């Protein structure tokens, strides 16, 4: 093991958190660390997925003595139903995010709050969808595409348009397994219908629908969310930024954005740079305005503007505990209701903006595309005016910060690869240079690291530990979401230093390509980018996705969205490694379907691997990659 001397260690991050928890104690604030203790031990039936409460005859809990519920459903049906409902929740959430983006796209206009910043990409997708682009005004096209995209949610017939992006073999597998997603809302509705009392109790059918609902997310709602965010806000390109709690600045007005939808945060970033606002900040005694982020809203704005990342999911309370947060502005998903009472212990304004995420003890400023500019400006102003209310005695911003290079969309990755291609030999705009690195053994493969934090895993240890292990073994890491932020906080996206600790192969690749060894691909909806990348690699290589030495990994996942993601990643043919059990261990049959050789693996050529021993999980990932290499004879 190498020492990774420059990185910020888990212990150092925990020490910083502990200093903030002292403040919490001082002001009498409640924190997740305490609530975890209060909630432990967790309900064993819930953890195993063996509790059913979908009708009011129960709740029924399955034990050896009581092997069936009142209706007669066995443990496999119950576990599978719970699993499908979990998935449906995630698919609905991601996809609804995508839908909001499509509505925003419909509001774009020349000179308006929202504009088309990447017309080329819009035209490219339009052509892909068979929409006439010639001689069409770009905004007319945007509105037309928005309507077509919105129809993907409810169209009566046909399957998702983006499925055509997958290699033919993958499309055939989906067709054969009958898991090609139809309208997105229909897959969620079908899932809820199947899990209703008295419908499906056949585990295999329920798991099949879980894959299908997952695919409607990954190749439907999420993919639209990603692609059309790029159209409106720009396709990310490599950009340098910083990460960890030390990005907040003591002398500045600190506004923290949190959540997932970039529509509002884009506006906040815009107004934070407005000279009028900066002048106002100075007039109240601040030196300037610092926007930073947590969770995936942070990922969205860092990918496009280099806005620093203050932390990930389990750091959301920390930013308030610094005592230097004038406002925490949230949109949707992964927002602790705890932020309400916590913000009351400080001067911090907790501002909710979406009717989807209404939270007690917050100020609600409803955000809409029409009034986005005014709302954002009002929020920035409110934060500035809150600066004098700070209690300076409580201010403590731990001095932890690392450099990071972010912004690796698929387009950006191909651009990087063009940079190492040779114009005398190679074609440009492909993934072939990457394939050559893997084929020759210089890189052993790639891991897509994703997902959240979860108190069941010592926060970030699995993300950072696994990443280091992969990097030392010449396995390149692509990452999104809170996993990406864990990497950035630790320093693994540092474009200069991080490569020094990698294996010789990955180090050389980083040197020649000018990249960090861990590539930030965006927020959790942007896992759709990873799907596109995997599809393009398989097509450029001429093999199936399941043959490519690539695995997925969510070692600290916690949300329903994560299960939906897991389903579509596996269904795309990518073996997926989980460090937290998806409430399925109560059923041997569901476990066999998800993790066995003769379950979903027979349908989609990939399965889940669950191991809560993180080191062992890492060994299994490397073994899986090496096995894929051996099968290819490389």
């Amino acid at each position, binding site marked *: 093991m190498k020492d990774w001397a420059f990185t910020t260690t888990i212990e150092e991050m925990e020490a910083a958190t502990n200093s903030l928890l002292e403040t919490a104690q001082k002001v009498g604030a409640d924190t997740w660390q305490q609530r975890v203790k209060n909630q432990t031990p967790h309900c064993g039936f819930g953890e195993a997925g063996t509790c059913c409460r979908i009708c009011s005859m129960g709740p029924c809990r399955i034990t050896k003595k009581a092997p069936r519920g009142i209706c007669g459903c066995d443990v496999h049906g119950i576990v599978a139903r719970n699993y499908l409902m979990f998935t449906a929740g995630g698919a609905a959430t991601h996809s609804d995010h995508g839908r909001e983006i499509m509505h925003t796209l419909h509001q774009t206009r020349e000179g308006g709050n929202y504009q088309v910043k990447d017309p080329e990409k819009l035209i490219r997708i339009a052509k892909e969808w068979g929409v006439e682009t010639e001689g069409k005004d770009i905004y007319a096209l945007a509105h037309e595409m928005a309507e077509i995209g919105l129809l993907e949610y409810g169209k009566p017939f046909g399957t998702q348009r983006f499925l055509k992006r997958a290699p033919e073999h993958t499309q055939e597998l989906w067709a054969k397994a009958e898991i090609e997603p139809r309208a997105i809302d229909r897959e969620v509705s079908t899932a809820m219908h199947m899990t209703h009392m008295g419908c499906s109790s056949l585990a295999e059918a329920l798991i099949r629908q879980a894959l299908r609902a997952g695919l409607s997310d990954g190749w439907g709602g999420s993919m639209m969310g990603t692609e059309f965010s790029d159209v409106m806000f720009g396709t990310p390109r490599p950009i340098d930024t910083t990460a960890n709690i030390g990005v907040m600045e003591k002398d500045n007005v600190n506004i923290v954005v949190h959540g997932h939808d970039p529509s509002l945060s884009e506006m906040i970033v815009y107004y934070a740079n407005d000279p009028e606002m900066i002048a106002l900040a100075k007039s109240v005694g601040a030196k300037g305005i610092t926007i930073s982020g947590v969770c995936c809203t942070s990922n969205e704005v860092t990918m496009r503007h280099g806005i620093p990342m203050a932390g990930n999911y389990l750091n959301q309370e920390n930013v308030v505990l610094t005592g230097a947060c004038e406002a925490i502005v949230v949109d949707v998903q992964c927002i602790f209701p705890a932020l309400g009472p916590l913000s009351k212990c400080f001067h911090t304004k907790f501002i909710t903006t979406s009717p989807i995420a209404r939270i007690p003890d917050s100020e609600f400023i409803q955000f809409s595309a029409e009034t986005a500019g005014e709302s954002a400006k009002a929020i920035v102003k409110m934060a500035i005016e809150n600066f004098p209310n700070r209690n300076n005695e409580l201010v403590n911003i731990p001095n932890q910060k690392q450099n990071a290079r972010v912004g690796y969309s698929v387009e950006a990755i191909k651009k990087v690869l063009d940079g190492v291609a040779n114009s005398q*030999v190679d074609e440009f705009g492909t993934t072939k240079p990457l394939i050559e690195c893997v084929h020759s053994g210089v890189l052993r493969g790639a891991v897509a690291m994703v997902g959240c934090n979860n108190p069941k895993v010592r926060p970030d240890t699995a993300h950072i530990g696994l990443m280091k292990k992969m990097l030392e073994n010449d396995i390149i890491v692509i990452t999104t979401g809170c996993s990406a932020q864990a990497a950035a906080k630790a320093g693994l996206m540092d474009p200069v230093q991080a490569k020094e600790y990698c294996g010789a192969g990955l180090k050389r690749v980083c040197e020649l390509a000018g990249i960090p060894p861990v590539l930030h691909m965006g927020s959790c909806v942007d896992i759709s980018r990873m799907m596109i990348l995997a599809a393009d690699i398989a097509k450029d290589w001429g093999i199936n996705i399941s043959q490519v030495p690539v695995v997925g990994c969510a070692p600290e996942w916690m949300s329903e969205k994560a299960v939906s993601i897991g389903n579509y990643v596996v269904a795309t043919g990518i073996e997926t490694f989980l460090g937290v059990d998806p409430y399925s261990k109560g059923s041997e049959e569901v476990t066999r379907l998800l993790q066995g050789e003769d379950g979903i693996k027979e349908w989609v050529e990939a399965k889940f691997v669950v191991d809560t021993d993180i080191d062992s999980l890492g060994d299994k990932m490397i073994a899986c990659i090496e096995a894929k290499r051996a099968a290819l004879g490389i």
Partner: protein
Amino acid sequence: MTLFDRVFGGNDYNYERTVAAIDAAIAQYGESEPVSFPGTAYSLPCYYGVTGVKITNLGEMKAAMATIKANMTRSPRLQDAFDSGIASALCAEFLEALKYLHGAEPYAEPEMGHLTDAFVRNLGVPLVTGDIPGVAVIIGGAEDPAETVALAKSYQAQGILVTLTGDSIKHCHEAGMKLGENVRVVPLGYEMQSVIHVVSVAVRAALIFGNITPGDFKALAKYTMDRVKAFVNAYKPLSDEIVSYGAGAICLGFPVVSNETENMFRVPMSLIQQLDTSKWNATSLEARQIKLKITNIDIPVAFATAFEGEIIRRGDMQVEVDGSRVDCFELVQTKEASEVEDHKIEVIGPEIDEIPVGSKISLSYTVDVAGKAMQPDFESVMERKFHSWINCIEGVMHTGQRDMIRVRISKADFEAGFKFAHIGEVLYAKVKSEFDAVVDKCQVKIVVDAEQNKELRAHANEVFNARDARLASMTDESVNEFYTCIMCQAFSPSHVCIVTPERLGLCGAVSWLDAKATKELDPNGPCQPIVKEGCLDEHLGRYESMDAAVNKYSQGALEHVTLYSLFQDPMTSCGCFECICGVEPCSMGVVITCREHAGMTPLGMTFSEMASMTGGGVQTPGFMGHGKHFISSKKFIAAEGGPGRIVWMPKMLKDQMRERLDATALEMYGVENFTDMIADETICTEDPEQLLEYLGNAGHPVLSMEPFDM
């Protein structure tokens, strides 16, 4: 079979046969038999560079095999493949060293085998200036020999140094191509393992110019990757042995381009399959990110730095411009803009096709330049470049300067349609491209008429005399500014030269006027003026402003420098110094030796060995690199008594410096024929007693000087 398996296989093959060869050699000569390559102080250079251990005899070589074996790990990781590639290369070096055992001379023309330290040092300046933009390592040969020759010539025409291994030697040799260091096409050996001799050059470049600590492999590999622009062109078929060398090359940062497809892999920018071998040149340059200085000159023959060292023998000569017998000269004159018609090339008198073959003719060329930023001081700077420019013409040889020039034009050039006017085209094109910042207009007049040249030469001599008078009056005291020169930092990152009127750069290529002109041509370039301020010690030549400059430009590696002392913070060296001087303790004098002299000195060290003590931007009191012309400067180790301290120089150097050195010594010490008092290799080589005896007999002034204040 995977790529790594092939590397491992080649490494195993090399390891086994090396072990066997060492055992056989020990059986024949015993373990104490010395092992070395000729003309290097870094023996054995690759092993020394990689491990920091010098191997001097067979026993040590055998022991070293255990170190090599320890690096032959077999995990399927690039690190293991890199380590095995290097291990394979080290085996190759041992196998080659064994060929030189017991005084053997294993290589004969056209093969050159091991290349000396002098070879490496000669590469320093041209690699830095981009005159040699890269190093092509050609392995094997094409199916059609003409293709190999065309490839080698394509690099040669770009000034790229070419090394040949295997069939490529045969192909080029049999095609009658001139081979050797002077034409920059260097045949190493027919056996594949002989490719190690160019690796050895790269390793020594890192040690000499980069001040890399032997054994710091990480730094060594970074140096070669960042600064040695080498690449490999390997013709199919590629054996596992070659593949293992390829891994070593890629480890050092040298990409490999090949047309092999059998059992072969691709790695971007590192291992490139190019089936169209006619595109190897372009593919390689792009892969190694080599940018060529483009000068497109409209002449019927090639123009490239690779031809600079080409020799035209009497039998191959069409005509000769012979300044030793008839009136000839070359001259640059500053004119008013109105007096110069840009790109006017005038030939007065007969053209080459009107002159009988084998004639010795009177010819002069005068280059008139005009420009707002032009200064007469730059005339001599440009004029000194003529030698190199005219030599770059394929089939033309130039020696001498001013009115002592000799130019030979080959029959081949004549047949290709080369005319005198083309010399004008070359001079015009080069002046306009290299001095574009000061020259707005330029015209060339070539006179091929003995009568006219007689008068013109007299005028030219007036110009030369006036210039000499100005140069003579130009001392370190008479100017307000000295210049930095950090041109070599591309190669030697912490070295800084301070160039003064009386102390030219240690490479011999940058005088104070050159530095001044360079500043004018490239205002943010390597030569920056430093105002003489804060004199701390006039005798040593210590100034606050010079200290600040070296500190700044060496990025803090150096804090102090003196201009005139050998002991107190002497000026550093990059590694491309023409000469090196070192203290001779018995006589309290200094010994000077030069790059061209391969033999021993009374210090018991050769040039290479002395040079290995300094260079790479470090200060080594008692040793100092310098330019030849500094020897006759009154400021040469002035703090220690000046050039009167010189007790030994190679004869060749004595002869070159005699006139000016004698004049300086007469002025400083009142001694006639001082150069004769200096010993050389014909008088003594290693014995200090012999040296002292000679100095005593000659009445050398050093004997009456104070001992050094070491």
